[in-house]
C-alpha cells in the first residue's frame, strides 16, 4: 500500500499537491464563517452532475422540451428526484452565494490587494443568476414561459440597444423554439464554461492572496492554524449538510411541472422564482418614460458600487463596526430586497382576483404533476393520417386504394412493403397527371416489379392520385 502511494507520489507529486492544498495557513484559525466558498463549489458540482444526467432525456426545442421533462419526471426512475435536486439546487446556489458575499463584506475580506479576486467573484455571482434565469425556461411549462417572457421584456427597455438585445436573446421578436435553443446553449455550454474559468481564477487568486482571516488583525496575528484538519472538516461538514437538506427536500416535496406553455393564454399571471421576486416587484414601480431609471440607471449604479467596492473602500480598517457606510449600505440593499419580496406577496394576497388566479395556477400545476405521462404522438402517427383524411376527396381515394388492393403491396399507409416501394413522397417527384398516366399504363420497370395496371374511371383515378399525394 505505502509502496503504491510512494510510486504514485513519485509520478504525480500528489503528496506535495495535497500538502499545498491542505497545509494553507489560516490567520486566526479555522472558523465556520469560512465554509461558504467551498460549499458553493460542491453545490455547483452537484448541479453539473445532475444537469448532465437530465440532458440524457431533455430535448431543447419548443415542441419536445415539455414532453421530455414530463417523461423524465413521471416515467424515468428517480427522474422526479433528480430534477427536484437540480431545480432546488439553483435556490441553494443563490442562498449560499448570498451568504458567501455577506461574509466577505462583513469581514472586509475584499481588502488588501484583493480587487481582482473580488471582481471575479462578482462575475461569478452574475453567472449564477444567469444560470438560474436560463434554466428556468427549459421545462417550457406555463410558469417558465411567462416568467421568461417578462424577464426578456425587461431587456427591451434598455435604451438604444434594448430591442436588438431582446431579439438576440429570444432568437426573434417572440419567444419560441429558438428561444429554447438559445437558453439551452447558454445554460449548458456558455455560462457553465465561464463559471469553470472564473472559479479557476477566483480560487487561484484566493490562494495567491491567502485567507484574509478575522476582521481584527490582532486576532489574526495571535495564532494561525492550517486548513487541515479543522477547517477542512467544517467545510466538508457544511457541504454535506446542504446536500443532505437538499436531498431531503427534493425527496419529500418534489418540484412540480405545470402543463405545457400556451402562449395564447392571456389570463396567466407570471410570477418568477423567489429570488427574482424582489426584482419583479421593483419593476412594477417603473412604468413608462421613467422605466429607464428603474431598469437601467439605478441597477447600474448599485452594480458599479458593488463591483468597485475594493476601489471605493480603501481604508485598511476591516472591523464591521468601524465601516458603517459599507456594511450599512449592504444591509440596506438586502433589507430593501426582502421588503420588495414581502410587498409582492402581500399585494398578491390582497387582490382577490389575483389571489384566486394564482391559486388556480398552482392547482393546475399540481394536477398536471399528478397525471400519468402521456407520450407524444409522432408525426407519422394515426392522428396526422386521420387529419389528412378530413378532406373528402382523399377519404374517397383511400377507399379506392384499399378496394384496388394497392395496400396489399404498398402498405396500408403507402409506407411500402418488401413486395413494392413506398408511395410517400411520390408527389414531390411526379406531377399528378404523370402519376395518373403511369397508373393506367405502368412502365416496364413497374410491370417487372409486379405492378398491375389500375383499371378504374378517370375520375376515380384522379381521386386516387389525390390520396397518394396526401400521404405523409
Amino acid at each position, binding site marked *: 500500500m505505502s509502496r503504491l502511494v510512494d510510486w504514485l507520489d513519485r509520478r504525480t507529486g500528489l503528496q506535495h499537491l495535497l500538502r499545498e492544498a491542505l497545509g494553507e495557513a489560516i490567520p486566526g484559525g479555522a472558523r465556520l464563517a469560512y465554509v461558504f466558498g467551498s460549499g458553493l463549489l460542491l453545490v455547483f458540482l452537484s448541479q453539473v452532475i445532475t444537469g448532465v444526467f437530465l440532458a440524457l432525456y431533455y430535448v431543447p426545442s419548443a415542441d419536445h422540451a415539455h414532453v421530455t421533462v414530463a417523461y423524465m419526471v413521471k416515467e424515468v426512475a428517480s427522474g422526479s428526484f433528480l430534477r427536484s435536486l437540480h431545480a432546488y439546487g439553483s435556490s441553494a446556489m443563490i442562498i449560499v452565494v448570498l451568504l458567501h458575499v455577506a461574509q466577505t463584506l462583513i469581514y472586509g475580506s475584499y481588502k488588501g490587494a484583493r480587487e481582482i479576486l473580488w471582481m471575479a467573484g462578482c462575475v461569478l455571482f452574475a453567472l449564477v443568476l444567469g444560470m438560474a434565469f436560463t434554466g428556468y425556461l427549459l421545462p417550457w411549462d406555463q410558469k417558465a414561459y411567462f416568467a421568461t417572457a417578462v424577464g426578456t421584456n425587461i431587456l427591451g427597455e434598455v435604451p438604444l440597444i434594448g430591442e436588438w438585445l431582446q431579439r438576440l436573446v429570444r432568437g426573434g421578436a417572440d419567444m419560441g423554439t429558438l428561444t429554447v435553443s438559445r437558453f439551452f446553449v447558454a445554460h449548458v455550454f456558455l455560462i457553465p464554461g465561464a463559471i469553470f474559468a472564473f472559479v479557476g481564477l477566483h480560487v487561484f487568486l484566493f490562494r495567491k492572496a491567502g485567507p484574509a482571516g478575522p476582521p481584527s488583525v490582532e486576532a489574526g496575528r495571535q495564532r494561525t492554524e492550517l486548513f487541515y*484538519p479543522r477547517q477542512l472538516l467544517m467545510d466538508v461538514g457544511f457541504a*454535506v449538510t446542504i446536500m443532505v437538506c437538499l436531498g431531503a427536500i427534493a425527496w419529500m416535496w418534489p418540484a412540480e411541472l405545470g402543463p405545457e406553455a400556451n402562449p395564447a393564454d392571456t389570463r396567466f399571471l407570471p410570477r418568477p422564482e423567489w429570488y427574482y421576486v424582489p426584482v419583479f416587484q421593483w419593476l412594477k414601480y417603473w412604468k413608462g418614460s421613467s422605466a429607464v431609471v428603474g431598469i437601467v440607471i439605478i441597477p447600474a449604479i448599485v452594480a458599479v458600487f458593488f463591483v468597485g467596492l475594493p476601489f471605493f473602500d480603501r481604508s485598511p480598517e476591516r472591523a464591521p463596526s468601524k465601516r458603517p457606510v459599507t456594511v450599512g449600505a449592504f444591509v440596506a440593499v438586502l433589507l430593501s430586497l426582502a421588503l420588495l419580496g414581502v410587498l409582492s406577496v402581500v399585494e398578491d394576497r390582497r387582490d382577490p382576483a389575483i389571489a384566486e388566479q394564482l391559486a388556480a395556477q398552482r392547482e393546475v400545476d399540481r394536477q398536471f404533476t399528478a397525471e400519468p405521462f402521456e407520450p407524444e404522438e409522432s408525426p407519422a402517427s394515426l392522428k396526422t393520417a386521420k387529419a389528412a383524411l378530413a378532406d373528402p376527396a382523399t377519404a374517397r381515394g383511400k377507399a379506392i386504394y384499399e378496394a384496388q388492393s394497392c395496400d396489399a403491396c404498398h402498405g396500408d399507409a403507402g409506407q411500402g412493403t418488401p413486395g413494392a416501394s413506398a408511395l410517400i413522397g411520390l408527389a414531390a417527384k411526379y406531377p399528378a397527371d404523370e402519376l395518373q398516366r403511369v397508373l393506367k399504363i405502368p412502365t416496364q420497370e413497374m410491370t417487372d416489379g409486379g405492378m398491375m395496371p389500375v383499371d378504374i374511371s378517370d375520375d376515380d383515378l384522379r381521386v386516387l392520385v389525390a390520396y397518394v399525394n396526401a400521404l405523409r
Partner: protein
Amino acid sequence: MSAERRRFLGALPFLGALLAVGTSSVGALLAVPLARFAMYPLRRKPGEVAWSDIGPTTDLTPLAAPVKMLVEIEQRDGWRKMISTKPVYVTRTAEGRLRVLSAVCPHLGCSVAWNDSRRQFSCPCHVGVFAEDGALVSGPPPRGMDELDSTVEDGRLKVRYQYFRQLVTTREIIA
C-alpha cells in the same frame, strides 16, 4: 518542518476516515438515483408488446368466414409513441375458439387478401394461397399465415401484434 509534517499526516487516519464516510454517504445519496435514472431504458424488455383491442367478441359471434379487422398498435420510443393501424384476420376454429392471423405474407410481406368465392386467402404479390385456417396451400410462401397471440378480456378480443421473420419455415418473432 518535519515535526509539522508528521503532525499533519498523523491526524490523517481518523479524520480521513470521518471525511471519507461523510463524502461517500453523500456520493451514495446521489449515485443511486443517478444510476437508476441513466439505466432506466434497460428495464424495458425487448419485444414487450402491448395488447391492442380488436373489439367485443359479440361482434364476432356468427363468423362464417375470416373477417379483416384493423387494429391500432402503439409503439413506444422513449417519450414518443407511434400509432399505426394494421390489418389482421379473425377466424374461428372448429371448436369455436377465436384466432387472429397476421395479414402479412410470410413470403415477402405483402398483405394477404381473403377471397370469399374461393374461400381461400391469396397473396397478390406472388400468388401464395392459404386455406381458411391460414395453412399453406400453394405458392412461394415457406409456411402458413402467422397466428398472433390473442386473448379475450372483459368480453373484448385483444391481440399482440408482432412481426415474424420472412422466408423461413418456422414462425420466428422479430422486433
